[in-house]
């Protein structure tokens, strides 16, 4: 393995650069942000390339002569530079494009067409800030809520933005922020994503068939690319919504340093609102003569995130990037009570303190070194750490003393409960991109991850004995420490075989320490241009995954993911993706895409869900193990259609998905998992009504999610003898259900609208106020049904069952403001 890496690196460094080439960066003129997927081409020839995520382009083999080099990008003015290139010369030209209104159809057509020609991967979508901010969202813009509107992507319900992509569950998505894995990218149990849209530059999403540089997941890839920071001046933006305030500020590095910095933060104010409500309730209670004990705050919950980035350009060829993120959800409930009693020779003083401290969140850091080894060779080395922890710390302490005719007694008792799941991931990655000629772009690299998983449940108690001594006891109900080391080595060639035929051939070799085996993932992508406007794409690839989550498949709400490596006794799961698609880009810049896919899953595992507590063979109360899984057979297939318009006064897309996913376990024959929705239609639009006003609209329709229908009631007998010492059997009322997920909720339907009004500021910035309504028609989209018994209140006689649908988002208006300066 080491020798292989050595050869690859040596190969990269020693390949001579004989032919003339043109390289450089394309940046936004206003702030110096690199423009990814900008198109640079030599006018009058077929030579051209798209910039990568760093804004870097390489035109490797340009014949000597005089040309016009053109850079174009959607939303920016065209930039043309005349140049003269001599034999054996390499030229570097950096572009800075000026923003333009999104109406220059000609510019856009050129840009989109170049991108259309370049990309070999199917199922890939890039969203920029504009796409994310303009569309209606729940309370505030959220990248995940936009992604769910794309074909092939869905969420289980309105309360969760965890993504289910083409039959894959959220744990099968590799979600990254600037290339760093983020394990639980959600706040408030999934209502909001971790990513502050003010800091986001763009989101690069692969619904399937992703290239060899990505590994360790078998579903999809989402890379959130944060802003680099303004290299020209200090600027920023601020946003205030009903639940949070957030801001971002960026600017150039001070003094002689070349580079930029960016700092963004967000904090919710649930806790301040609920604290004010608690105080009001307390005052009201007191004014009515009650002296109830109140906690400081009934619902002391908030979340925050802070992210920062520093780019340091050491010279023209070296750049260091330091990136950090810290985000936490915090629920910190405290209740203190004091009681005293003094009557008839009897006194008593008692105190109680109860704390419920629940924190979960991510902390990531990374240092990236980018080295332009030669004009055709870029080496990126990346050190990163990603830490996720979920921790519940509950403790109760009561103490006091009493005195009466019988004597004096004291007590001092406490108990505690800790539950935690910690993922500590340290990674090193190196990637070399080499463009030897106009036909080949070779990407190779290795990735090493050292991940520690720690899961624990601890109970403890302390008490005061009759001898005034403190005794204590601690029980560790669960303690799992699972280290895992993952290694990955990959190579990929993007090969323009002919002007109309391209291939992307990749191979990835990986291993995980708990499983003594090497896993190979071949990946093949083919693209054939039927004409300038139409292409056919085919992709096949294998994708292994070395970790999973231990969450029940039937849960309706998921607060956190419980991550763990694939147990040693289970084989490593993998999925094969087969994708066939056709794309057509009209002269008016409207993209039509039709894709069909089939995904097989092998060695898939699903948690054996059941009661959280059970009784062991020895009669002891125990936790259901977290690492007990069913081997699961699965497959998914579907057909997706997308019509997308990215320019003009009206932009947006219409996406339709037909999807089928089936699972099979030893308990149940083939059944649709809970997230399966055969038909989904999303209409997403942003209309620039006037120069200052935008109207956004999303219409979502989908088949209802499956659920297990309740057909009746039955009494199951249970036996018990542990405490009485005598066996007895008693009937326990239980619901009688039909086939697993054999029925479906009514169809999902939701219309959201958004109105945005912009006002220009004197300093060149602007401020916007927005108003949006979620679920305009107030359609009842059921999250689940709950059942209860109907009673005759007078006689207590039962009258059968009743059922209520627990609704997802109702009609919900929100508003907010944002300012860019």
């Amino acid at each position: 393995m080491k020798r292989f890496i050595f050869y690859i690196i040596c190969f990269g460094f020693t390949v001579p650069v004989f032919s003339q080439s043109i390289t450089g960066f394309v940046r936004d003129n206003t702030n110096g942000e690199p423009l990814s997927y900008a198109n640079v081409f030599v006018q009058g020839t077929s030579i051209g390339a798209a910039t990568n995520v760093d804004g870097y382009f390489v035109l490797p083999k340009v014949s000597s002569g005089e040309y016009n080099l053109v850079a174009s990008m959607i939303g920016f003015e065209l930039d043309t530079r005349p140049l003269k290139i001599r034999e054996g010369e390499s030229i570097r030209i950096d572009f800075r494009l000026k923003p333009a209104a999104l109406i220059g159809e000609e510019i856009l057509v050129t840009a989109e067409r170049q991108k259309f020609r370049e990309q070999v991967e199917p199922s890939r979508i890039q969203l920029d800030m504009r796409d994310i901010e303009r569309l209606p969202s729940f309370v505030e813009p959220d990248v995940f809520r936009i992604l769910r509107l794309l074909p092939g992507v869905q969420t289980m319900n309105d309360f969760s933005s965890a993504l289910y992509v083409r039959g894959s569950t959220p744990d099968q998505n590799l979600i990254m922020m600037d290339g760093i894995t983020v394990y639980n990218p959600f706040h408030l149990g999934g209502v909001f994503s971790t990513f502050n849209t003010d800091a986001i530059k763009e989101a690069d999403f692969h619904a399937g068939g992703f290239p060899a540089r990505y590994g360790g997941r078998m579903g999809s890839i989402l890379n959130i690319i944060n802003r680099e920071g303004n290299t020209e001046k200090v600027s920023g933006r601020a946003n205030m919504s009903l639940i949070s305030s957030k801001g971002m500020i960026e600017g150039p590095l001070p003094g002689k340093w070349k580079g930029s910095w960016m700092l963004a933060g967000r904090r919710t104010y649930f806790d301040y609102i609920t604290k004010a409500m608690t105080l009001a309730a307390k005052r009201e209670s007191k004014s009515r003569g009650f002296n109830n004990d109140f906690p400081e705050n009934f619902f002391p919950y908030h979340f925050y995130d802070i992210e920062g980035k520093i780019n340091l350009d050491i010279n023209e060829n070296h750049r260091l990037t330091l990136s950090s993120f810290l985000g936490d959800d915090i629920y910190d409930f405290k209740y203190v009570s004091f009681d005293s009693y003094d009557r008839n020779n009897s006194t008593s003083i008692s105190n109680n303190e109860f704390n419920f401290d629940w924190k979960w969140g991510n902390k990531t850091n990374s240092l990236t070194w980018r080295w332009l080894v030669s004009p055709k060779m870029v080496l990126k080395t990346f050190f990163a750490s990603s830490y996720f922890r979920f921790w519940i710390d509950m403790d109760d302490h009561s103490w006091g003393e009493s005195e009466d005719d019988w004597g004096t007694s004291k007590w001092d008792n406490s108990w505690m409960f800790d539950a935690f799941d910690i993922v500590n991931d340290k990674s090193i990655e190196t990637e070399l991109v080499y463009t030897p000629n106009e036909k080949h772009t070779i990407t190779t690299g290795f990735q090493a991850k050292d991940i520690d998983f720690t899961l624990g449940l601890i109970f403890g108690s302390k008490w005061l004995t009759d001898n005034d001594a403190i005794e204590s006891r601690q029980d560790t109900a669960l303690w799992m420490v699972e280290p895992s080391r993952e290694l990955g080595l990959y190579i990929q060639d993007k090969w323009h075989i002919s002007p109309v035929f391209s291939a992307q051939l990749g191979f990835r070799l990986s291993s995980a320490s708990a499983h003594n085996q090497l896993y190979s993932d071949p990946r093949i992508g083919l693209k054939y241009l039927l004409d300038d406007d139409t292409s056919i794409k085919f992709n096949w690839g294998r994708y292994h995954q070395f970790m999973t989550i231990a969450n029940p498949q039937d849960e309706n709400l998921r607060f956190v993911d419980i991550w763990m490596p694939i147990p040693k006794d289970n084989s490593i799961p993998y999925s094969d993706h087969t994708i066939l698609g056709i794309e057509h880009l009209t002269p008016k810049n409207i993209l039509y895409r039709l894709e069909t896919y089939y995904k097989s899953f092998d060695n898939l595992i699903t948690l054996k869900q059941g009661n959280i507590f059970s009784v062991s063979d020895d009669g002891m109360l125990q936790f259901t193990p977290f690492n007990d899984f069913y081997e699961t057979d699965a497959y998914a297939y579907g057909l997706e259609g997308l019509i997308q318009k990215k320019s003009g006064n009206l932009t947006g897309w219409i996406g339709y998905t037909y999807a089928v996913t089936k699972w099979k376990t030893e308990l149940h024959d083939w059944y649709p998992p809970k997230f399966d929705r055969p038909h989904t239609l999303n209409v997403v639009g942003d209309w620039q009504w006037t120069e200052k006003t935008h109207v956004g609209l999303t219409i979502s329709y989908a088949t209802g999610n499956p659920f297990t229908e309740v057909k009746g009631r039955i009494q199951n007998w249970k036996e018990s003898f542990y405490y009485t010492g005598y066996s007895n059997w008693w009937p326990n009322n239980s619901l009688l259900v039909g086939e697993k997920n054999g029925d479906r909720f009514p169809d999902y339907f939701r219309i959201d609208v958004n109105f945005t009004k912009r006002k220009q500021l004197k300093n060149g910035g602007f401020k916007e106020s927005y108003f949006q309504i979620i679920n305009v028609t107030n359609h009842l989209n059921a999250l689940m049904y709950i059942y209860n018994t109907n009673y005759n209140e007078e006689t207590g006689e039962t009258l059968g069952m009743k059922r209520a649908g627990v609704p997802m988002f109702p009609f919900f208006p929100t508003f907010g403001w944002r300012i860019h300066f």
Partner: protein
Amino acid sequence: MKHVIIISFLFFVSCEGWGWQPVDSDHDSTLNIFGLIVSEPDSSYGYIYVHQSLNLQDPENILISSDTVYFGPGPNDFYINYEYRSGFTVLDAQVTISNHEKEWVFANKSNYDWGMYETKYVDTSGTFQPQPGETYSLRVETDDGRMAQGSVTVPLRPNIREEFVQDTLSNRTPYSIPFDAVEDDGTFRLKTKAIYGNYACGANQVHLIADRTDTVWTSQVSDCSNSWWDEGEYEDAIQLEVLLESMDSHYYDYFIEYGNKNEFISFIMGSEGATGRSFGIEGGYGVFGAIATDKIERIFVP
């Protein structure tokens, strides 16, 4: 302000109609049987509960009478006592159990307990004495034409090797209970329990003997330092019963293998349930199982 009022009004108005709704289902009510045959060294018996599954619209309990109970002289010193029978219980079943020689007709017998009548079918002839190794067939029919049947073989009686068990057992040190290896399909479970209403920490223990080649069980020493019983109150020696059960596969599967496993759960605000299991029963849900036991008594010193 006008807009805020309009929006607030819309918000509250729009939430109407999202409440509880009566619900029905087209499920065919199915017999649900719990039949148990027990063969102990000093007694043998069997009984059958005949229940049925209910539709969602069916009542779980049915009011059969009400009585005004006065507890004081005042005009309001009364309460109304309601008596119900369970909607799950089937009262009109013809229940017969037979072996290759004889047939017993079981009759229903009701007990009133906690405001509800509980009914089970028992042998009233006094001749039903199930024997280990014997196969018994059950047949349940109702007036509306439903029928369920099943059969079970009573496991061979296990044998505790009493001569090797100490006279006095204690929680403070492990003690061993040797027994003979299993010779049929039964699964063994060993229980110890305090008898005659006594209690001692560590006396009650249960152990499933998963390995059929096991021939000895060793007790666990329980930590009684934090016993919630008052210290000193239960320090005297007590009588301990050691019971070795052999369960047939129906009983084992219903109560132990699948007893704690739900096929369907809904994490928060949801419910749990199952598709309905049957072990040893055809034409309905439930279980027709059998247990054969051996038992000895010993002195137990806490």
